[in-house]
């Protein structure tokens, strides 16, 4: 009796331990029950009428979640300065920074949103990426705050549309960028390349010439899958002869089996096969990938114009120029770009201090462009800046990028800003796969179409 009892006890203890360990993991995946009330608009309105100015004596802490953890970056510096200035002027306000990498922040916000604990200020990405948060009612509309201090007029025309749903603006962008090809003039010269490529075939030739000299042709960090996708989408923008491919797919006018799509996949694979990318690209994260270019080890870097300031601050400063992605098989228009309206600052609908938070964000966004301009990081800013860039000592690269901006006649948003997250993830891993093996473009198209059909 005692023996079997002991045995049973041992058995169940073992089982429980196993269960506990397994469940510890499972708990990650389990969701908190959503609050019965979405909060959203009604909460917001109530808070607005009650709180304005009334709390001035109390100590208020505002949590400011952001994606600028890099202490050496200009934006981090600006953020800290503006926060310090604001705290000095408003002694009752304390602003707590929660600085995270882009991907970490996305995940953290996602879990916070699931438990309705969104920080007072957070970061969301435009269009399709922020839609679930807007639909869930976790973000506060910012219309009233935009009208204060003329903040609304500082934004470029049409830019806020990417952050607006049903006539309400839910986030304020930190920038507005285009995808360009940065190139290292010294390395181009070393490989005997005299002019920037005007066509995709010329680009392939240049890639081969660089490769022959032992220079990594194109820097990329494809562990963070968006980088490869961003480049791929630029090719698609060309093979499609203009913007709107994904929109057409969503509207049912086209599907992924379209020749424009398979042609883009084939072109992309030509780059891979020509050895355009660093070896082991899929285990390099995005920052490290950029550093390959910024330390002068790679000749090209195809990325958003947001890198301009960082490149000017790196060891290759002065040697870098930029051009628009070339035409592919004679198709496309070099004045059309991949557009990258920046990450946006949003305010939680359930913030305990909505008015203070709005006041601070208003101050922050009003002064953001000025500081950016002063610190020579105003290229790709979403807001209008007064001032002469060349006279203010901006680099040739920066002025060159600003000229490219002037030539923009249209373009597309990134894949994950257009399609829903499930399709976007399938796309991202499908493109990542192209870096490690040759796949029939029809197969890639099928993967996309299947994912799209399954997640409409």
């Amino acid at each position, binding site marked *: 009796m005692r023996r079997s009892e002991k045995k049973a006890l041992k058995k169940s203890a073992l089982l429980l331990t196993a269960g506990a360990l397994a469940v510890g993991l499972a708990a990650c995946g389990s969701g908190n029950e959503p609050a019965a009330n979405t909060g959203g608009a009604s909460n917001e309105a109530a808070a607005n009428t009650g709180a304005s100015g009334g709390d001035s004596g109390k100590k208020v802490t505002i949590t400011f979640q952001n994606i600028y953890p890099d202490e050496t970056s200009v934006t981090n510096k600006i953020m800290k300065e503006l926060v310090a200035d604001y705290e000095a002027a408003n002694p009752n306000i304390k602003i707590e920074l929660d600085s995270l990498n882009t991907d970490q922040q996305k995940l953290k916000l996602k879990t916070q949103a699931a438990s309705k604990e969104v920080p007072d200020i957070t970061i969301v990405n435009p269009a399709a990426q922020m839609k*679930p948060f807007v639909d869930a009612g976790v973000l506060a509309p910012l219309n009233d705050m935009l009208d204060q201090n003329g903040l609304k007029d500082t934004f470029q025309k049409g830019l806020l549309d990417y952050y607006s749903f049903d006539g309400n603006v839910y986030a304020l962008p930190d920038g507005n960028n285009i995808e360009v090809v940065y190139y290292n003039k010294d390395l181009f010269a070393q490989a005997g390349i005299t002019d920037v490529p005007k066509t995709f075939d010329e680009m392939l030739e240049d890639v081969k010439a660089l490769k022959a000299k032992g220079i990594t042709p194109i820097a990329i960090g494809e562990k963070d899958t968006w980088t490869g996708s961003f480049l791929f989408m630029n090719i698609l923008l060309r093979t499609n002869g203009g913007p709107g491919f994904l929109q057409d797919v969503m509207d049912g006018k086209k599907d992924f089996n379209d020749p424009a799509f398979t042609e883009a996949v084939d072109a992309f694979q030509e780059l891979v096969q020509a050895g355009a990318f660093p070896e082991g690209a899929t285990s390099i994260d995005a920052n490290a990938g950029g550093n390959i270019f910024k330390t002068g080890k790679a000749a090209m870097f195809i990325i958003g114009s947001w890198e301009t300031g960082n490149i000017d601050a790196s060891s290759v400063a002065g040697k870098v120029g930029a051009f628009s992605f070339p035409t592919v098989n004679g198709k496309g228009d070099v004045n059309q770009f991949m557009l990258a309206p920046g990450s946006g600052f949003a305010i939680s609908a359930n913030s305990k201090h909505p008015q203070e938070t709005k006041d601070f964000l208003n101050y922050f966004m009003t002064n953001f462009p000025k500081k950016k301009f002063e610190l020579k990081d105003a290229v790709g800013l979403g807001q209008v800046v007064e001032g002469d860039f060349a006279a203010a000592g901006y680099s040739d690269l920066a002025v060159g990028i600003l000229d490219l901006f002037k030539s923009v006649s249209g373009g597309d948003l990134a894949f994950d800003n257009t399609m829903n997250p499930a399709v976007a993830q399938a796309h991202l891993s499908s493109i990542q796969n192209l870096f490690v093996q040759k796949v029939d473009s029809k197969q890639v198209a099928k993967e996309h179409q299947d994912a799209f059909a399954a997640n409409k």
Partner: protein
Amino acid sequence: MNVLKVRWWTIGIFVLPCLLLYMMMVFVPIVISGYTSLVEWDGIGVNKTFVGLDNYVDILFHDPHFWPAVRRTLMYAVFSMAEIPICLLFAILINRYVKRGNRLVSIYFMPVILSVVIIGQLWKTIYNPLDMGGMINGILNALGMQGHMRAWLSSPQFAMYCLYFVSLWQYFGYHLIIQFTGVQNIPSDIYEAAKIDGADGFKADRYITLPLIVPVFKISIVLAFIGSLQAFDLIMVMTGGGPAHATDVISTLMYNNTFLTFKYGYGSALAMTLVFICLAFTFVINGVFNRIEKKVG
């Protein structure tokens, strides 16, 4: 069974705090997870659609990434468990031939106390391509074996084995210390008695050490098994499940579905599947060991 001679409610009071904590941390989440696995939900909205067992059907029959992930997870477990006999062998050898075995075992234990993130970054560098300073490729290059050089973590064929290896390297010391303690705890008078009877060296190991080490061996096996089913952090740091799902295990697949694709219900169903697999295999392992214990004991 009133052996303790205390009132039932006294026992109750002492058990309650732990029981409550356990219920809250383990049973409640599992029940919620079980419920979530039956709905279609993006994780933040209020729009939940009850879909019954659809998520499970999708996982088992339609998800092209699930079965490969299960295979990799089980391979992980097999490798981890296969490591333990080697740990035992080392434990026996160290115990017999090394004067201050404790010190050596402590050194083997070092990787266990390092954070997985650090280990991941370290090994990522070791596996790097040559032009990024990868050590393995550097050695191959120096040996003139350029043909075998590759970007280890970006190769769909090799990346997973590279990850297995790091895990084995890290947990070698962990299981070694468990086995070593087990070996040390076997009373020396048994060996002395055996010596008189003529059983010495490996013969003594066969007839004394092995039968007496079985319970400790079992602990290691179960820990290794469950640990590898949950393998997550190392993979996340080193490859993130890539390239293109080539290193996805059940837990990373679950994570990606839940948090990146906004499919909470589907992710929860994956989590529940993992729980079931854990429980089923724990039963199996338990059964096997009960039989072994009966045989040798």
